[in-house]
């Protein structure tokens, strides 16, 4: 951490760790899993050397890692953890508890394929599988965005009292080096002051049950005050996620004013203005799509890219506005709802359904378990979708890219 802004070459994991340090995180609890491990190894080293004044709690499982964060966040600490794939699956119960308790925990997910079969390489099945747990989910395209988004995540989380997952592609970003500008500590301190008064004060002289049973009905508490039932609490939680549709762009703009970089808020675009064919993805795949779009442009196909930065909450209004009047949108998913299709594709179809000027929406599946996907293959998929569109194909199935079905 430096008094001055400095640019150095670092991995995505190092960028995430640098953000946590700049955020002056107070409690870190984590369990190692590839490809996330270097994030917390770096933080652990800084705590050990005294460069980071935080409590590092080494735990025996991811379930315990998030449990420690829940306890620390409940009493007001700024907390951080990171995980991947089966580690995230193992902590899933606590993922829901953290959300339901409205705790502003930030967790980095170095996206990795779910077993079985065992695989350590990238896709986005892990975080997509917990998209409904009530966390905000932000997806990053490069290492600079990882650092900047992780810092923004605490600001968003602490404003809304909601936990945030910062998702970035394992190995493609987590272990790949690129130049990253690390802002000066004084600038970050101004953007991200210490966490305000905690959500719930734990006072032995005036104790509380936190997260007690709440059944179907509203009911009066011990003081006779009518309290919400389960459904009121859930509706309020949902309203918080929807409020994030405003807060995420606001914080991105605040970050831009304070640090000098912004990332588009909810979505991000490349050559979209006059695009007739829009390529849609989350994460580093969106960066790859810019190359594919430029190839298509060289052939006279008006292609552009729309990156999904915020996946939960899902930016329906922003996506509708960006896609209105286009001829086609091809969604590339690195995750699959088995028995249906890619999750971003499904959500985008639903968002566009019934819009008078909606484009055709097609789905493509790529990169599962780290399967290579090149810009040329992405461009080929776009050409196939366009050809089917012109031929009037209806109910077009998901296009699996670089698949060898004969094997």
């Amino acid at each position: 951490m430096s008094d001055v802004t400095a640019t150095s070459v670092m991995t995505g994991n190092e960028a995430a760790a640098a953000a946590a340090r700049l955020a002056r995180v107070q409690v870190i609890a984590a369990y190692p899993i590839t490809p996330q491990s270097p994030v917390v190894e770096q933080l652990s080293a800084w705590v050990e050397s005294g460069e980071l004044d935080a409590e590092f709690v080494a735990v025996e499982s991811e379930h315990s890692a998030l449990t420690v964060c829940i306890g620390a966040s409940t009493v007001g600490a700024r907390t951080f953890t990171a995980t991947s794939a089966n580690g995230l699956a193992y902590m899933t119960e606590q993922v829901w508890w953290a959300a339901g308790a409205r705790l502003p925990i930030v967790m980095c997910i170095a996206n990795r394929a779910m077993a079985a079969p065992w695989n350590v390489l990238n896709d986005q099945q892990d975080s997509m599988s917990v998209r409904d747990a009530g966390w905000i989910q932000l997806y990053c395209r490069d290492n600079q965005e990882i650092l900047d988004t992780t810092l923004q995540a605490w600001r968003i989380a602490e404003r809304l009292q909601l936990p945030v997952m910062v998702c970035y592609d394992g190995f493609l970003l987590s272990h790949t080096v690129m130049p990253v500008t690390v802002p000066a500590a004084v600038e970050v301190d101004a953007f991200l002051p210490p966490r305000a008064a905690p959500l719930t004060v734990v006072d032995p002289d005036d104790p509380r049950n936190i997260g007690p049973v709440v059944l179907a009905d509203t009911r009066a508490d011990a003081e006779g005050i009518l309290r919400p039932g389960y459904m009121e609490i859930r509706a309020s939680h949902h309203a918080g996620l929807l409020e994030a549709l405003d807060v995420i762009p606001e914080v991105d703009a605040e970050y831009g004013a304070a640090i000098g970089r912004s990332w588009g808020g909810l979505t991000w675009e490349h050559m979209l203005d006059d695009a007739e064919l829009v390529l849609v993805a989350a994460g580093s795949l969106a960066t790859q799509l810019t190359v594919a779009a430029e190839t298509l442009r060289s052939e006279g196909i008006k292609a552009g890219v729309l990156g999904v930065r915020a996946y939960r909450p899902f930016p329906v209004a922003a996506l509708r506005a960006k896609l209105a009047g286009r001829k086609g949108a091809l969604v590339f998913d690195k995750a699959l709802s088995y028995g249906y299709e890619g999750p971003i594709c499904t959500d985008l179809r639903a968002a566009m359904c019934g819009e008078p000027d909606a484009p055709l929406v097609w789905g493509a599946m790529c990169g599962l378990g780290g399967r290579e996907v090149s810009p040329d293959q992405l461009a080929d998929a776009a050409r196939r979708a366009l050809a089917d569109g012109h031929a009037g194909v209806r109910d077009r199935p998901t296009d699996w890219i670089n698949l060898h079905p004969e094997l």
Partner: protein
Amino acid sequence: MTAPARPRIAISRPAAGEAGRTGDWRAKRPVLDPAKCLTAKRGDVTCQICWALCPDACITRGAPPRVDLEYCKGCGICAQECPAGAIEMEPEQAHGVCAVDDDGAAR
């Protein structure tokens, strides 16, 4: 930065009944006959098996033991385990809590 308003979460002061007054789950209630209860007859705390075995800690030690009907779910373990057969499980409607038609429907 001012503290954000507390969102709607599950939180309460620790107090009896905060996890629900489970007595209204009960279909049958334990009724103790002091004439049979060993403890009641001796006037001391000799037996207390019902107190020891109640899974919801709804029975208070004493002579005779007392059942807290606000929380007793009516499981019947106390009646099953009482060595003197002093506890009978009686239908709630016999105590006017809930009248039941011939077909079993509450009214």
